[in-house]
């Protein structure tokens, strides 16, 4: 498990800054939500941590090690995408085996790890199906399974529940939170839904227009919002 430290991080895609002067310390084993309205830079921040985008300025450290120039595969993080990004030509088992195969683990170990992760997520009966034969909720679980099948330094989630219906979303919130407690893994969770952030996170990073507005526990934000933006955002009832 790991700490993630961002020092003065900025990002510009070429059309003006999208993130400015981001300073943030994500502690070992913590569940942190990046919360803010659409277009505020949540996904960009997550992708900077993942290594899928290069920071324009600033330092990103994982466990104290500078990772700015490290490829995604060498950062040892797992990510769950909003679109799930399941490999359509592979079965559920092959999807979940992929990260382990990339690490050249022995076949028996891979099978055991996939079986264990599948059991944890209730996917055992679906292991031989292709993604197109799964419901949205099942696909979401497979995406989770592909992340938890190994023990990465941290989990990154980009709005993983936004394509589910309200009931399933509520259920998965609890499940992800429980998984987090079981695994004790550092998690960074992007959401535009304040209720999701408030119920799941240990700490919330409120973002607006590329700037951090406030960092604190859900209680901090509710009781002592740093500014009108945070108060307004939390006041919304989706």
């Amino acid at each position, binding site marked *: 498990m790991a700490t993630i430290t961002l020092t003065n991080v900025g990002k510009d895609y070429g059309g003006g800054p999208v993130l400015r002067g981001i300073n943030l310390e994500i502690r070992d084993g913590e569940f942190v939500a990046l919360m803010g309205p659409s277009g505020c830079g949540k996904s960009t921040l997550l992708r900077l941590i*993942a290594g899928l985008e290069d920071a324009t300025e600033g330092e990103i450290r994982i466990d104290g090690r500078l990772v700015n120039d490290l*490829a*995604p595969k060498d950062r040892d993080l797992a990510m769950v*995408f909003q*679109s*799930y*990004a*399941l490999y359509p030509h592979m079965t559920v088992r092959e999807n979940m085996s*992929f*990260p382990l195969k990339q690490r050249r683990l022995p076949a028996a170990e891979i099978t055991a790890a996939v079986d264990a992760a599948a059991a944890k997520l209730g996917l055992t009966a679906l292991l031989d199906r292709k993604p197109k034969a799964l419901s949205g909720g099942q696909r979401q679980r497979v995406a989770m399974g592909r992340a938890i099948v190994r023990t990465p330094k941290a989990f990154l989630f980009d709005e993983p529940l936004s394509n589910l219906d309200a009931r399933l979303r509520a259920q998965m919130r609890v499940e992800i939170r429980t998984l987090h407690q079981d695994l004790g893994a550092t998690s960074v969770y992007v959401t535009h839904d304040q209720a999701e952030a408030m119920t799941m996170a240990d700490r919330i990073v409120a973002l607006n227009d590329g700037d951090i507005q406030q960092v604190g526990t859900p209680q901090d934000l509710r009781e002592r919002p740093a500014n009108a933006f945070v108060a307004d955002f939390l006041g919304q009832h989706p």
Partner: protein
Amino acid sequence: MARTTGHVARALALALYVAFALFPLFWLVKVSVTPDDLLYGEGVRLWPSRVTLDHYAAVLRHSQFPLFFRNSLIVATATALAASAVASAAGYAFSRFRFRGKVWVVGVMLVSQMFPLVIIVAPIFRLLAPLGLTNSLSGLVLVYTAFNAPFATFLMQSFFEGVPKDLEEAAMMDGATRFQALLRVVLPLTLPGLAATGGFVFIAAWSELLFSLMLNSSAAVSTFPAGLLGFVSKFSVDFGQMMAAGVLALLPVGAFFFFIQRYLVQGLTAGAVKG
């Protein structure tokens, strides 16, 4: 009632179209089995009163057609492989990377498609001759690959654009390099496109006449379109044998599409993302 009428009309329209598209092929087969003495007498009949396979026998036994056929097969296969490889690499770069001069590269590739080939035959001949690449199959493969690569690249680019970027990013998060992600995730999903691109290039190379005729004069390295001209002599055209050779030349193309058709119709990316 209205629906059945619609179906019938549709089927009829399709049948008409298929008949229209296949009629020249039918005529090719018909002439190839028509005995020489009936060719002009029964010229407009749909099917001759007598059929013969003599033309096929003559083509296979007494002409150099088997040699031309082999040359064409080598050239078209090598061109399809080489152009597909180049087009995959270039198409991937165009679809995924932003780089300086990209607009210019694309522009030059488009412009290169606009020249009538006739005007560059002579310069190409001058270029290839000192390199020993005239009168050789390798020379043809080189030229055909160069001329087919731009269009094949645009084709592959559009197929790569159909594969969500998330998929290779997921693969990179899962421990793959970009190249491994391309090999294990993106390329398998573009197989139908790759097959279509390969097929397109194969056919273009298979039926090319101008360069084959101009660059290669020796029969040993002639491809079959150039070889077909051998059936035209100063005073007559041996239509029967020419058509028989044409029918034979259609076989590999037909076989090729028979094998790749399942890739062409498959929607492999279904279920990749939410839905």
